């Protein structure tokens, strides 16, 4: 039982990070039909911005701010303007190919500039083990959970309680109607890209102390984000959150209780099952197909 609680907490922590990445992923999909195959690399890279800032002498807290700012600029704004905008008129597939190429580009750049060795990354909290009913839980997991959940709650409040958020939702649901109502659709789409960049940077800060900063990290994270988004529901923010938590918990529990060599297989089997029986995702709405 104690080990079960331990696994559950660490699963929730991983799941919270997956949820952050998946939420950004679905936001891009909803507002601009962008399927971002480089999402995992978007999470891998901010850690290196931060390491670079610290290398240049910035204290950790300042490096984090610089890292987030650079992320917003490069993987938010520049991504939108340079990669996505010229591509949208060609349809979904060329953009998918382009983001695959972008992920290759980011991976290879980091590998060439930083070597393929894993870089240690400072943690947000000192690693103290807390004991609850015999289970050992590290403060790191708790901090990850707290930060990720507050980020998600902040995003939820932004989307549902502010005028800006409701404009963004309107843009996602029906861009034509939103434009008629006087919502600056293009700017709203841009905002989702910036929000995605911030979410990716936060996820990067949370996950890098655990996995270390490594050029290859993006591959598993990107796939996890897709899986979470599809399992939970592509067109719902809460679907992505739900999917992320399911995935994190499942990953930890199945590795411990079923088979550690096939750890990676269980989420994929669930994915295939969800796609076969409930393609809109567990919490998703059915999207009408246009002829």
């Amino acid at each position, binding site marked *: 039982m104690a080990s079960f609680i331990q696994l559950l907490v660490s699963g929730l922590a991983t799941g919270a990070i997956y949820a952050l990445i998946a939420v950004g992923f679905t936001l891009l999909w909803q507002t601009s039909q962008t399927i971002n195959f480089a999402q995992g690399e978007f999470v891998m890279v901010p850690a290196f911005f931060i390491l670079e800032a610290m290398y240049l002498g910035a204290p950790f807290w300042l490096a984090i701010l610089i890292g987030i700012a650079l992320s917003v600029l490069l993987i938010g704004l520049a991504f939108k303007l340079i990669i996505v905008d010229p591509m949208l008129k060609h349809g979904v597939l060329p953009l998918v190919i382009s983001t695959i*190429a972008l992920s290759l580009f980011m991976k290879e750049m980091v590998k060439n500039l930083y070597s393929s060795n894993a870089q240690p990354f400072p943690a947000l909290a000192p690693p103290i083990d807390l004991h609850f009913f015999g289970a050992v839980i590290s403060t790191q997991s708790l901090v990850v959970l707290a930060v990720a959940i507050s980020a998600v709650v902040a995003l939820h409040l932004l989307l549902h309680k502010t005028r800006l958020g409701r404009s963004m939702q309107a843009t996602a649901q029906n861009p034509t109607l939103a434009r008629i109502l006087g919502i600056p659709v293009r700017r709203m789409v841009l905002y989702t890209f910036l929000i995605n960049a911030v979410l990716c940077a936060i996820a990067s800060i949370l996950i890098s102390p655990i996995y270390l900063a490594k050029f290859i990290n993006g591959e598993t994270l990107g796939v996890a984000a897709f899986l979470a988004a599809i399992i939970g529901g592509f067109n719902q923010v809460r679907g992505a959150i739900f999917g992320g938590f399911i995935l994190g918990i499942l990953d930890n529990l199945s590795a411990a209780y079923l088979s550690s060599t096939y750890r990676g297989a269980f989420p*994929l089997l669930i994915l295939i099952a969800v796609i076969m029986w409930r393609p809109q995702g567990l919490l998703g709405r059915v999207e009408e197909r246009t002829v």
Partner: protein
Amino acid sequence: MKRLAVIAVAVGAAFAIVVPLFLKPYGIYLSSTWAVLTIAAMGLNLTLGYAGQVSLAQGAFVGIGAYTTALLMHAGVPYPIAFIAAGLVCFSIGWVLGYPALRVQHHYLAFVTLAFTTLVFLVLRNEEWLTGGTYGLSGIPRPVLFGWSTNGPVRFYYFSLGVLTVLATGTWWMLRSPWGRAFIALRENPIRALSLGLDTRRYTLMAFAIGSSIGGLSGAVFAPLVQYIEPLSFALNLSLNLLLMVIVGGSGYFFGPFIGALVAVLLPEWLRFIEGYYLVFYAVMVMVMMAFCPTGILGLVERIVKAVSVKRSPPQPALQPEGTSP
């Protein structure tokens, strides 16, 4: 336009036959790699370029084909039978993988096939009793066909070129048959195809199965080429690379995969001087191409040839639409 294409193909074929004779063993090995990759990309082009089904599983099928061939040959089965078995195994698995394609489209399908590729990789890595796990399978012999040994770089190159020629001819023939037309209809407008009485269900499965079986056959050539196979060669990277090859060459063009595979094989060699940055260069090239010419290199060539010929001759009243004349 058509005569130009015939000349280009003839020159390309002559190159493929003559050039390797003047290359060092490493160059000949690269040429054989090109032939293998072209076969795999040709299969994917059928699924993606003609039938319009996004698949990230082609690398997995190359792997299944290679392992099938290697295991059967180790069991003493003659190569031709192992070769055919690789194609049949991939045909049936491809057929089954086609079922999700009936339910979902585009990106969902990309993810299902991506999941499939990862699952195949896990099985190849974990089932040591069958696949040798991370150590892979070694000592795969070069086949002897009708008393003619394919051992030796040049001999094996001509063997792979021969397989490529046979499969390309078969694919060409199929694309001109009603099946090929049906695949294109599936890509262009599935609902209209259905309303015209086309059994879209069967053709979707067929597109997947045939494309996958061609991938398996390329694996059957790959295994004796490298003589040692391991799971990592068939991980997601290979599927992504094959996808990029089809797109870079020109998806939906018959010779697109030939060009795409050539670029993928030659680029790292030509760009030796920038060392690790060649993939960076490749990635930038793909992104630029997607922004300005998403139809790939052959699409670009077609556009240029058209522009030149329009300039030369005044516009004719009834222009034949390209690609519809036989």
